[in-house]
């Protein structure tokens, strides 16, 4: 008896604790988001259907079990029955589930066919997973950029008492897309397998190095939709979020125009010489966003997997080697070829910065033109 009353107490506390959450959040804490694309709605409906089917079967099966546990106890003086075989019953309870499954398989098949139909897309975006960031390339506009986690380090390292609302779900440059357009995503990876998952779009597509697989979305509502990398991809797997900003077509066109302009400006900057101060300022920015995940903000790295920049024989040795490893990376290690990711100015800046900060003081520097020359030399 005591046990039962404890149990009741426990259940009511649990329910009391849970209800406010269920009410307070628009997006349920307990269930899949309904999402904002036709596919995500279909998925939600399938999910709820199969859920209720399971609940139905569960009620019957668990009901019988519980009935048996209560009424067919030895302590009630029940004598065991003798039956132990019935072929017809066996066939019936094999066939009924089979019919339920067939009924379930039909809508699932239809949705699946729709999900796989990536034809007639209005916009094509290539999504590339890197350790540990995403690259977005707008194939129709020649725009391309990286999207890095932007949660401040103070929050990540617990130096701040509170964390922002979007802790681990915020990036420096979100993916911007228009609503009501069919967007085709071409998903791939540069190093290891990642997975591009945005629950509200109903998309999870593994990013596999060397292969491109597709997914699509037609977003119905403007808004910001967030997700995370879903396939274990190394130490910072938990730190490469995805943020999709869906805007109206006008805003999207404006944004595209802006990006194109910025691209031209950046190209110009890349031919210009920078002063050492400019290089150092830009270098810090580049280092903190691109290199610090492995080499740390202060250059201490995480040896032995990720070497320190502070006192590194490359960062304090001949500059050509330093430029070379940043441009071309090192094959078979996590050190990527940043030549394809960063502009000449960025590379000049980060190399200069690493040699004159982070505890190093080589005193030398490298400028944009030299990086350009290094690239040209390599081509030949």
């Amino acid at each position, binding site marked *: 008896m005591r046990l039962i009353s404890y149990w009741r107490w426990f259940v009511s506390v649990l329910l009391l604790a849970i209800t406010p959450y269920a009410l307070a959040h628009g997006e349920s804490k307990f269930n899949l988001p309904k999402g904002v694309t036709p596919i995500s709605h279909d998925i939600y409906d399938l999910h709820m259907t199969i859920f209720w089917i399971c609940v139905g079967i569960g009620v019957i099966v668990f009901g*019988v*079990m519980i009935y*048996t546990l209560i009424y067919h106890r030895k302590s009630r003086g029940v004598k065991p029955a003798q039956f132990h075989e019935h072929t017809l019953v066996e066939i019936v309870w094999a066939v009924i589930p089979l019919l339920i499954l067939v009924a379930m398989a039909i809508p*699932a098949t239809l949705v*699946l066919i729709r999900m796989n139909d990536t034809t007639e897309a209005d916009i094509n975006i290539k999504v590339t997973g890197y350790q540990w960031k995403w690259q977005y390339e707008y194939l129709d506009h020649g725009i391309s950029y990286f999207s890095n986690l932007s949660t401040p380090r103070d929050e990540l390292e617990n130096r701040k008492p509170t964390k922002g609302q979007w802790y681990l779900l915020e990036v420096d440059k979100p993916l911007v897309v228009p609503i009501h357009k069919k967007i085709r995503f071409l998903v791939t990876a540069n190093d290891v397998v990642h997975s591009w998952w945005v629950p509200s779009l109903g998309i999870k597509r593994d990013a596999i190095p060397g292969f491109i697989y597709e997914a699509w979305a037609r977003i119905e509502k403007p808004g910001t939709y967030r997700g995370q990398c879903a*396939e274990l991809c190394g130490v910072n797997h938990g730190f490469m979020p995805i943020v999709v900003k869906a805007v109206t077509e006008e805003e999207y066109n404006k944004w595209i125009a802006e990006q194109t302009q910025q691209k031209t400006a950046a190209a110009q900057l890349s031919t210009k010489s920078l002063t050492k101060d400019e290089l150092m300022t830009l270098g810090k920015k580049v280092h903190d966003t691109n290199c610090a995940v492995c080499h740390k903000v202060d250059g201490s790295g995480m040896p032995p997997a990720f070497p320190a920049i502070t006192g590194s024989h490359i960062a304090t040795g001949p500059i050509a080697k330093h430029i070379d490893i940043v441009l071309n990376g090192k094959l078979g290690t996590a050190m990527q070829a940043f030549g394809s990711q960063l502009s000449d100015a960025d590379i000049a800046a980060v190399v200069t910065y690493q040699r004159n900060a982070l505890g190093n003081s080589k005193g030398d520097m490298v400028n944009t033109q030299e990086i350009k020359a290094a690239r040209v030399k390599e081509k030949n």
Partner: protein
Amino acid sequence: MAEVITHETEHHHYEPGHEKTLGAKIARWVFTTNHKDIGTLYLWLSFLMFFVAGGMALLIRTELFMPGARFISPEFFNQMTTMHGLIMVFGVVMPALTGLANWQIPLMIGAPDMALPRLNNWSFWLLPFAFLLLISTFFIEGPAPNFGWTFYAPLSTQYGPPSTDFMIFAIHLMGLSSIMGAINIIATIINMRAPGMSYMKMPVFAWSWFITAFLLLGIMPVLAGCVTMMLTDRHFGTSFFNAAGGGDPLLFQHLFWFFGHPEVYVLILPAFGIISEILPTFSRKKIFGYRFMVYAIVVIAVLSYVVWAHHMFTTGIPLASELFFMYATMIIAVPTGVKVFNWTATMFKGSLSFETPMLFAIGFLFMFTFGGFSGLMLAIVPADVQYQDSYFVVAHFHYVLMSGSVYAIMAAIYYWLPKWCGYMYCEKLGKWHFWLTTLGMNITFFVMHFLGLAGMPRRIPDYPLQFEDFNRIATIGAFILGFSQLIFLYNVIKTIRGKNRVKASAEVWEGHHGLEWTVASPAPYHTFSTPPKID
């Protein structure tokens, strides 16, 4: 033929327990070819590993108690998830089931021992070395394996730490051990059944292991091939899994899951067998639909070979494959359902009593079925796109593995322990163990369904704020779950030492059925030297 051999050796029966020196005591265990000794060794190894891998789980849960906490580093976190998974699968559930097979199959089919006793010795003694090798990776330069128990390429090949090679070798040893164990079980069941024990009179447990052994023979070589390809990719310039060299990372996943999916049935089929022994005993009623129970196991085993790609629904395999693997996966629900219905029918109108083995068996029945439901949901490809690699999957497979396989193993240990050591375990502690485990288990894993649906990916060392409360609950549950296993350990040791003072009779249970209850408790070192008569 067999008779002639037994006759020759009959006079030299060795009895343990009279060794005088420590060396002789150790030698007894190292050189033993007795199926009961080897079963005991397997079970202790499994028990030890259970606490090792369980400790890792608690470290993982501690790190996840709150966001941003750095109790362990993300690097070490990944090593923990990897090792927790590898050890629980290869070091806990598989050895425990093999240990049970060793102890029980000869007793249940009326055989004097396993068919190949020396092979048996070797298949056990490979394992401690395999696990030493695996665990030694924590102490060598560079991180231990840190790419998940599924060790997907290229994270484990081009990007894997040096310790990966140790893991590969450890897996080879485990595979060798499993293959030899499987051969032994098949040989025993085919050749050593007591006269009159036809296949369709065999206990369901023996049947379940018979089929599992064939599964093992089919998949272990594939795993061995897969890790060997990893090794050559890492060191000998091949590019099986490297797209830059003309290979395909997905090939790895196909090979891995061609092993991996039947593997989960290796973990659960013998558990089905155990439950099919225990429920009739405590229902005092014969198993319902024996024939269909056996057929269902066969059908599940066959189907398990053709569903592997359901672990790969988000990789972009072609539509036609997705459809095929979805249908095949859904169909597995039919024979599995038949089993659940038959178990329920076995209890129905029985005369139930609730000793600890029965409690665990009922716990299994409820929670495994529950895990089956989430499995059915996962089979629906479009929905799986949302569930895949989220905490929903983590919840699902802990319901079928922890409250499935592990519950069955615990049930089996309580059920047969009196037979093995001649004393009853403490029923009160057994009940505490069951209820605390069940409470901890459900607190820990139930909320993970919500986490997964709300979008929390698995294998992340830190998480967004919205996932905080359920993670806290899960961590609290994990500690209840973890620490209640100490009750189990205490109870088992107390029983073996005879501290409960309650001697077990030969039959042990009122509703007993089967040959193992016809020998004395504790089971003598040599049993069925002359085969029993079966009518």
